[in-house]
Each structure stands twice: as C-alpha cells, then as structure tokens.
C-alpha cells in the first residue's frame, strides 16, 4: 500500500501519534488511579476509538484566544480535548474531584469548559449537545465569523429527540457544524441494531438535507482527511454535515461494566484493529518515523501522565462550603441553618 500522508509533514504525523499515545496513557493512568482509590466516580475508556477524536480535532482550527473552532467532546473523545488545549492535569483533577479542577469539583471527568481554547463540556444526555452546538455555530453565522463547531456523540444519542431537534434546527439554519457520530456499536449494553434500523448513520443525513460520510474510525489519517474535507465545506457556507466514525468499543460502557453481553471472541478480533498499533506500524512501514522516535513519544506521554497525576493527587479536595456558591451569578444560596451557628431557624 502506498500510503498518502494527506499533505501532512513528518512533525504533524508525529503529532498525531503523540496525541494517540497521550490519550491511551492518560486513560491507563486513570485505571491505576481508580485502583488506588483516587478516582471515585465512573471511569470510561475509549480503547479502540482514540483515532476518531484525534484525527478529527487535528483537522480543525485550534486557537487559544476564542477565535478558533469549537469542540464539544465526549468521554470517549479525550484526545480531541487534549488537542484543543485541555490540560492533562485538569483531566486528572476532574476525575479525582479536586478543588483545583476547572469546575472546582462540581463536575466530573471531561465535563469542563474553556471558551478561549474552544471546547465545551458535554451534558450527559449527549443528544442535547447537538442543540447547544447548533446555537454556538448559529452565533458564528450571525456574527459572520469564520468558525465552525464539531460535536461528538454516540450511536445511542442519535435516538434522542434532542438529537433530532438540534440537527433539524442546525440544518435549516445552515449552522456551520459537523456532527461526529462515534458509532462504537454499543450504547451501554444496547447494540446499534436496537437503536436504529439503518445500517449506517450516514443514512440519516439525507433525511435532514445534509451531507454525510462514513469513515473507519480506527484510521487516524482517514479520519483526519474526512473531517478536513467536511470542515472546508462547512466553513465555505454549506452548513451542517455529519461524519460517522465506525469502530468498536473494546471495553465496557465504564469500568463497572463487565461487558459480559459481548462475545469475547469478537473483542479479541477487534484487538487487531487497534488504532495506535495500526498507526505505529504505518509510520514505520512508510518510514515516516523511526523506532527510536516512536519509543521516545511513548516514554514521554507515559511520563507526562505520571507527573500530572501525581501532582493532582497531592492537591486538596474542595471545601464542602463551596457547594453553595455560583448557583447564580448574582445571588447567594443560603447555608442550611443546621450547619451554621444559629440554634434557631427563625434567626438563621
């Protein structure tokens, strides 16, 4: 196979490998942190899906001043979050519910925001984020900005009413956004066949009058190419588009899910389609990177995760009193009188 680099130079090809390794190393570090008792909430792996988030995010305009493209990632798209400037230590702080986390411990895992860097944390019913991104990108069109948005969600979210309402609104309003459906074939324990009758989510595109394309989500360069082309069309005024990432969720919905509803043989087969291994082999086969360069990236990403996680471990949890702040921008939420000094509710 004579592989195309899709116009990417050696440094950029290495960037992609770095982002893939970073995603995997960060999630493997999380597993360790969970075993150590530092992660108390759910833990969700993207094993086998890393190339979808990385390839897509790399195709977009990433800025630090609020002028770039806007990302809405998911729990299984941490690679995109990192490429958009989400700090590794913040990722660990969020999972560990630290008071130093971007949400000061109010929210978990990848649910955080940075409008300057250009990412918006999801709400857990993911279909709703189609509506939110429709409005963000509507504002780009209204303000005549050359920005676009990309919103990740799963095959399961495609069944919600919010998905439909958000997409239909975006299509009608020609909102410059790309819907990235992460078709990993499972919505928790529900197979895609129980979420939809269509064999490919791209079949849904024409129903909304938008263009859609399906791509092998384990091939980071194919994803990059598909999203770059989609982004060019969206940016040029075509309006909303959809890209389907096809791959397979090789872990359970979360660590607490033993995945016993999936034939273990299928999972073993899918290990051969590991996006990191595939891309690594390709880099070597095409002489885009040397073994030494790749090992250096692997060591470096392992090490930055270790250092960031250890730093985050040492940081404090939030003071419980902080639970009452910021419910509103301008109002104070009272503390319960039983938590204060007043012996009498009439005086509190």
């Amino acid at each position, binding site marked *: 196979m004579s592989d195309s680099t899709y116009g990417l130079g050696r440094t950029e090809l290495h960037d992609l490998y770095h982002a893939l390794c970073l995603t995997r190393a960060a999630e493997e570090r999380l597993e360790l942190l969970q075993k150590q008792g530092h992660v108390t909430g759910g833990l969700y792996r993207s094993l086998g899906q890393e190339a979808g988030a990385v390839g897509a995010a790399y195709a977009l305009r990433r800025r630090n001043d609020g002028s770039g493209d806007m990302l809405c990632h998911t729990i299984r798209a941490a690679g995109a979050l990192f490429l958009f400037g989400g700090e590794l230590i913040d990722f660990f702080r969020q999972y560990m519910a630290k008071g130093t986390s*971007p*949400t*000061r411990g*109010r*929210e978990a895992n990848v*649910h*955080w*925001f940075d*409008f300057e860097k250009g990412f*918006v*944390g999801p*709400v*857990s*019913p993911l279909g*709703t984020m*189609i*509506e*939110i*991104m*429709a*409005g*963000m*990108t*509507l*504002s*780009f069109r*209204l*303000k005549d900005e050359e920005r676009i948005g990309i919103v990740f969600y799963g095959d399961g979210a495609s069944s919600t*009413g*919010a998905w*439909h*309402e*958000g997409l*239909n*609104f*975006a299509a*009608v*309003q020609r*909102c410059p956004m790309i819907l990235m459906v992460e078709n990993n074939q499972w919505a928790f324990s529900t197979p895609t066949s129980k979420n939809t009758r269509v064999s490919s989510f791209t079949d849904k595109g024409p129903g909304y009058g938008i263009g859609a394309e399906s791509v092998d989500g384990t091939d980071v360069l194919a994803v990059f190419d598909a999203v770059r082309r989609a982004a060019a069309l969206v940016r040029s005024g075509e309006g909303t588009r959809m890209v389907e990432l096809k791959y397979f969720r090789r872990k359970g919905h979360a660590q607490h899910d033993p995945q016993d509803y999936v034939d273990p043989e299928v999972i073993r087969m899918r290990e051969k389609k590991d996006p990191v291994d595939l891309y690594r082999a390709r880099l070597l086969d095409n002489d885009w990177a040397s073994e030494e360069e790749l090992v250096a990236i692997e060591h470096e990403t392992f090490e930055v995760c270790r250092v960031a996680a250890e730093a985050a471990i040492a940081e404090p949890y939030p003071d419980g009193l902080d639970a009452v702040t*910021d*419910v*509103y*921008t*301008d*109002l104070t*939420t009272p503390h319960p009188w039983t938590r204060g000094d007043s012996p009498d*509710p*009439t005086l509190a």
Partner: protein
Amino acid sequence: MDRETPEHLLKTKRGEPVTMLEAISEALFEEMTRDDSVFLMGEDIGVYGGAFKVTRDFLAHFGENRVIDTPIAEGGFTGAAAGAAHMGLRPVVEIQFMDFISPAYDVITNYIATSNYRGAGPMPLVIRGPVGGGNRGGPFHSQNVEMAFFHTPGLKIVYPSTAKDAKGLLKASIRDDNPVIFEEHKGLYRAPALREVLPDEDYIVPLGQARTVREGTDLTIVTYGAMVHKSVDAAETLESEDGVSVEIIDLRTLLPLDEDAIVQSVKKTNKLLVVHEDTRTGGIAGEIAIRVSEKAFEWLDGPILRVTAIDAPVPYSGSLEDYFLPQTDDVVKAARYLAAY
C-alpha cells in the same frame, strides 16, 4: 438600525396607555435597539409576528438574523439559544404557548440551569411565553408552568401582573446573566383594565422584589399574575361588606422568592392566605407556608390557607374551566373565614 420604529410601538413615547402585551413588545423592541446582542427565536415570531403578535413588525425592522422563525422544536431552539448565550449573545426565545415548553425541559433543567455552577459561565437567556387559563384554551393552551421549574436551582422565574411591571421585569430579565423563565398571562395581555401610561424612560423592575399592591392590617394575601386582580376585587368586597382590611403582596418574581416581603407582612397582619391560579398540590403555596412556619410561626393567629385551581388538567368547556379556576368569590370566602378565625 436607522429604520423608523413601527407606529404601534410608539404609544409610550406619545404618552398613550398601553396594554400588558404592548408593554412586553416595547420592552423587547427597546432592548433589541439598545443591545445588538439581543435576538429573538421562536415559532411564527417573524413573518406572522407571533401567535399573539408580540413581535409584530420586528422582522422588518431588525432583519432575519435577529428575529428567527424556528422549526417546531422547543427543545431544539431553546438549546440553540443556550449555545448562542455561551458565545456572548443574549437570546430571548418565545414558547408559543408555555404548555409546549416540556420538550425543552431536559435542556433547561440539565444544561441551562446548571451552566454557571458547572463552570460554563453566565447564561443570559430569557424563555418567555403565554400561560394561564380563562380563555377556553383547553388542556394544552392554558397551563401555568412555574412549578415545573421552581424546583430547579439556577433558574429565575418571573410572572408579572401589570403592564408597567411586565415591561420593567422583562427588561431586567434580558439584562440578567442568569436564565429566566418569563410567564405572561394571556388573560392579561389585552385586558382593558390593565391599560396604563408607562414612564417614557428606560426603567427596569428588579427581579426578586415583591410589590405591596394594597396595604392592610387584618390579613395578608400573597399572590401573583392574574390572581392579583381577583385578590384586589376580593379585598374591596371584604373592606366594604365586612370591614376587613386586606394587605396584598404581588410576588412578581417567584424564583428567587421575596421571603422578606412575605414574612414582614405576616408579622404585621398575623394571618396568611396564598392565592395562585396554578393547581393545588405542589403549588407555590406549600413553599410559602413552610417559609412562614420557619420564620414567623409565633406571629401567626390562624392557619395558613390557600385558594388555587383544583388538581386537574385545565378543562375546555366554560362551565368546567370556571369551576376549575380560583374565582374572586373563593378568595372572599377564604379570607372571610381566616379573618374571623
């Protein structure tokens, strides 16, 4: 915009009285003129000017980027409004009838209300629309929706009873950095008795402040919306027929609740009647009663009572709807009972 203001939006300028609906239109128009980041979305608000004509002629004046006719998808456009608010705009969405807000319940309660707390920053967004019964609208065009949202921290809920308040409260809502649900009683929209001359100046009515409609000494009625007017009618009857002096508090904002105003009045009159058009169980009377119990139990000289709609869907037929809704006579009877207690 150098286009001229449509004639029908110049009544206050000319010193003429306006209806509550006209006051709301003026508020929207003036805020859109004052601040380019304010824009409107909703069903049939552009070409048609809104089901109740609140935004008549707005499309021609402001253009289709600021007056957006949406698909019939309250969740979709309310969610989109939230996204636009993230990006620095100040959307005002119209729910054609507030009964139809339910598809947006997910995005309002899970996403919009929690935004600031989750670190996503301010959410300057107003969701407004007509509510209330008495218009033979049946189960799907007559509901009050405040209590579906009252339990959600992060939201503000506003429910005006007069033209002057409607304008000032809507302006304050649009300028607020928090999401506001703004309920407009359709029975008050064009009520001739509510026509009044408004101040020809840029004024707001601050959110969270109740208004004493009428001072009294024997008992307090806490109410809001259309029931303010029925309560005033009842108070006049009680005054003339029974010599009972009734104080009336119009909440104006339901969330945050002006607890001080309620408690102060109860401490003065020692008796409390809550009147609301919304249905009984889980209505705001329950919350008000517990707050008074916490803060003014020793001052009470009688039970806290309530007059509300009955616990049923809003029926269509006039005889049924009139029975369903709280009427002035109900308020008179309850207040009479309480005064004599």
